[in-house]
């Protein structure tokens, strides 16, 4: 069965395969939709358990077992990769859902001329201009020779001849627009920190003093401010080398921070196991589970 799904297909065979899969998928979805709500819940519980059981057994069963002279490999391992790929593909549907949602919200804003409809218009202009230029830049890249362009179909030749234009526009939109704006928004954090430093960082308790002291040492130890101006005069091989700002900062990161981070990692891991177990055994209250089992 794995070979049936994993065999590469091309041309009409591929189209037919995808169409057949889509039809079967929607048929199954339709049949499930017709079933009563209690059946859907039970089916969700069973499928969740089976899916989790697969990964648990795949992990616990040894990769190879010697039975007499025979070597038996774990039969579940060969399905791991295709299943993960299938999961990834299912997850990518969320991307489509996100785009659909954006279209719906901004489209409604624009069509009904609600307050802020200009933002909706800006969204559609940005979306389609970036999509168009990125696709033109991808399918008609610069660097093609006239002989290579001549082999294309007439319409494609027209687009291929404008490759420099598409690249130029793509660079303006991507590097000049998207990239620069993204970095700018992140950079605003610096100003928030400046405001917080003056208005909010108050030494109100001994813990606040320790926090502030550690923060000051880190700021001094990780920039030339401390390493050069403050303790730059201490030679690295002298007896006082441990008092260099970068050494103190490294000590805080390694000893104090390292211990705390390890504790966090363990705590998160234990919490993750507990939560995962509850989800696997359908013990979580949520959208599909009205009553804890």
């Amino acid at each position: 069965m794995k070979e049936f799904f994993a065999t590469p297909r091309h041309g009409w065979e591929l189209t037919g395969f995808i169409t057949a899969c889509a039809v079967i998928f929607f048929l199954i979805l339709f049949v499930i939709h017709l079933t009563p709500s209690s059946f859907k819940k039970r089916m969700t519980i069973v499928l969740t358990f089976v899916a989790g059981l697969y990964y648990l057994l795949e992990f616990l069963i040894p990769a190879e077992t010697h039975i007499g002279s025979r070597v038996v490999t774990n039969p579940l391992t060969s399905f791991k990769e295709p299943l993960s790929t299938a999961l990834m593909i299912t997850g990518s549907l969320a991307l489509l859902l996100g785009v659909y949602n954006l279209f719906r919200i901004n489209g409604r804003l624009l069509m009904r001329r609600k307050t802020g409809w200009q933002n909706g218009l800006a969204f559609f202009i940005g979306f389609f201009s970036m999509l168009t230029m990125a696709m033109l830049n991808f399918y008609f890249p610069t660097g093609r020779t006239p002989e290579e362009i001549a082999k294309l179909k007439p319409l494609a030749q027209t687009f291929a001849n404008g490759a420099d234009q598409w690249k130029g526009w793509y660079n303006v939109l991507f590097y000049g627009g998207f990239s620069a704006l993204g970095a700018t928004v992140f950079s605003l954090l610096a100003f928030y920190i400046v405001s917080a430093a003056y208005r909010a960082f108050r030494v109100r308790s001994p813990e606040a003093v320790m926090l502030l002291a550690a923060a000051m040492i880190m700021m001094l130890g990780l920039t030339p401010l401390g390493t050069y101006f403050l303790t730059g005069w201490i030679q690295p091989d002298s007896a006082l080398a441990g008092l260099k700002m970068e050494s103190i900062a490294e000590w805080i990161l390694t000893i104090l921070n390292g211990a705390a981070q390890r504790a966090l990692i363990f705590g998160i891991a234990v919490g993750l196991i507990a939560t995962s177990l509850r989800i696997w055994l359908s013990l979580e209250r949520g959208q599909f589970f009205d009553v804890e089992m």
Partner: protein
Amino acid sequence: MGNIDRRILYLIALLVMTLPLFLKLPLPIADNKRSLDAFDAIEKVDQSKGNQVILLSVNFSPDTKGESLPQARAMVVHMLQRSKKFIIYTMSSTGVAGQQMVDDEAKAIAAELTKQGKPRAYGKDWANMGYKPASSPILEGMARNVPGFFTKDSRGTPVDQLPVMDNIKTADDIGMVIDVSPTASYELWIQALTSKFDIPLLLAPTSVMVPDTYPYLISGQAQGELRGVLGAAEYESLLVKNKMADQSSVGTRVMTSMAALNAYIMILIILGNVTYFRSLRKGEVTK
């Protein structure tokens, strides 16, 4: 002094951050063990048998390019100077932008080196393998069949037509993984690949993520680290010392701004607390 207008604070911050960039006042950067270890780790990658390619995993978006791009650039300079073959890969859709930026930097550096008589070419010295979403099982699958995972590069060239991917079949042929990312994607590499197959891992997180990485550095699961833009500046300093660059690049220039901004923030904290304690003494506020 009590209540300085926010706009004045922001204006001074802007001047403090930007003036050092124009005045070009590079400050000396202290050596750091983590950056030194990262430098030595790349030096030690032995590609004499035609395998041991370096996998540069770039997962940053334009938001963090201020820190991540100088880190990636410094290591790309090192690898191209020493003719260490590498492939650029991203596992996140938002990382495609960063991947493109690093590829563009590699092209520019390669062109510069070619002018200096050290020819470097795309496909032969490095390749951009594009975006492929990954999870732990998928990376484990990649470990068994690398060309099966990277079937084409970002330009559509099949992997068997890329000289950089010659002799690269399994995880044993990967010499190192370098993770340049503002997220904890290094955990996925440790879980799926580097710990299992004993592949050295270098980290290049943003400054905010640095404390989170220390347990992995202490335990030896990561062999070196570039700590944010400071790490990039330290690495550039190492490149200059080892005559792989004539002068320090953007990482070092930015450090002067960072030092100035840190000094400004410390002054503001002290000023704010002095104002607060004065008000306490006058009875204007309660603790």
